[in-house]
């Protein structure tokens, strides 16, 4: 049971290991707070769609399962989008079209197809929650690194010394690719070290 939850955080981390859901990962992580909000919105969608899909998995005909998953996911995404617009207007504006793009985040469809459509509600819930949180953590880390180097702040608080000159490239698209590429490398290195030590 616990394994279902924990694997999303490290072993099968959606961003660093599976390299899924890249569009929002790269696009919105100019600031840590955007990464966190995108992560939470995605977690909400993956958890609720996994629960619903797991509940109705016996009634889903094989041939039309993908369209059905997509419609369910799109529904929750729309709900999340309107909720953000109503309650967190500024954040929703900053995330812009990347909130609706959660619909095609392969991570969510992947969980529906690989886990929720085959397992019970509680396990699907844990699996989705773990994946969502793993995704959120990755986004926050990426956002924090880019924010520190690109703007000298973390979550809006100034952390760099006064003379620090911002590396604008970090907030640009190029910086997103470079940072994530290196992070994936670091992740693999640490992961390997851990598995060697275990042996």
């Amino acid at each position, binding site marked *: 049971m616990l394994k279902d939850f924990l694997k999303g955080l490290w072993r099968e981390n959606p961003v660093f290991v599976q390299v899924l859901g890249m569009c929002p990962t790269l696009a919105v992580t*100019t600031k840590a707070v955007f990464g966190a909000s995108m992560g939470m919105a995605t977690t909400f969608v993956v958890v609720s769609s996994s629960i619903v899909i797991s509940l109705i998995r016996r*009634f*889903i*005909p094989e*041939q*039309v399962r993908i*369209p*059905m998953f997509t*419609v*369910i996911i*799109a*529904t929750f995404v*729309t*709900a999340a989008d*309107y*909720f953000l*617009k*109503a*309650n967190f*207007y500024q954040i929703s*504006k900053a995330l*812009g079209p990347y909130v609706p793009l959660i619909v095609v985040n392969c991570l969510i469809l992947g969980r529906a197809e690989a886990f929720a459509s085959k397992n019970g509600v509680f396990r699907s819930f844990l699996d989705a929650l773990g994946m969502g949180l793993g995704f959120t953590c990755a986004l926050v880390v990426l956002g924090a690194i880019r924010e520190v180097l*690109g703007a000298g702040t973390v979550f809006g608080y100034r952390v760099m010394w006064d003379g620090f000159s911002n590396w*604008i490239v970090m*907030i*640009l698209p190029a910086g997103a690719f470079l940072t994530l590429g290196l992070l994936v490398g670091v992740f693999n290195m640490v992961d390997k070290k851990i598995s060697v030590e275990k042996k």
Partner: protein
Amino acid sequence: MIKKILNNNTLRMITALTVVGIFSGAVLVLVHNYTVPKIEANKTKETETAIKEIFPSAAKIAETVYPGVFKITGHGGTPGGYAFIAAGNGYQGEIKMIVGVDAEMTTMLGMQVLESQETPGLGAEIVGSAFRDQFKGLSLAQPITYIKNQKPEKPGQIEAITGATISSKAVVNTLNKRIEQIRKKVKDK
């Protein structure tokens, strides 16, 4: 009857899709009805906050006969002016601003960006105060112009953001176009 439906494959597919469709529609109608008033309120509030930023001593803000154009009455006789929405295409999408001018439309009093999708770190600096403050007290006797990489030298001129000339130009063009429009409207009245 129900068993028959469950056994027939095509029927089963259609039923499943219809049920999901209805479920989805119903959920969204609920969400829509619950959130839309809040979203509208957010938008109105944002516009008002932006106007108050430009006219700190505004006593009364009233939308005129033209939608998106507000008449500002000053506090205790201080001069008011007009605030209006100006929108145009930037580098990566629409830029929407609130612009404040004095009652004679000879001087600009300030500008606030409501919406923009410019490149973070470059074009997005049009939201920053370093760029926006240049519009405070800018003469409108002539169309606004911009200059690259040096301090403005003529009246009605601003310095473009380094590395974001297109965004800066888009702001200037949008402002010029809209100010001309508003001038005509106010004159006609």
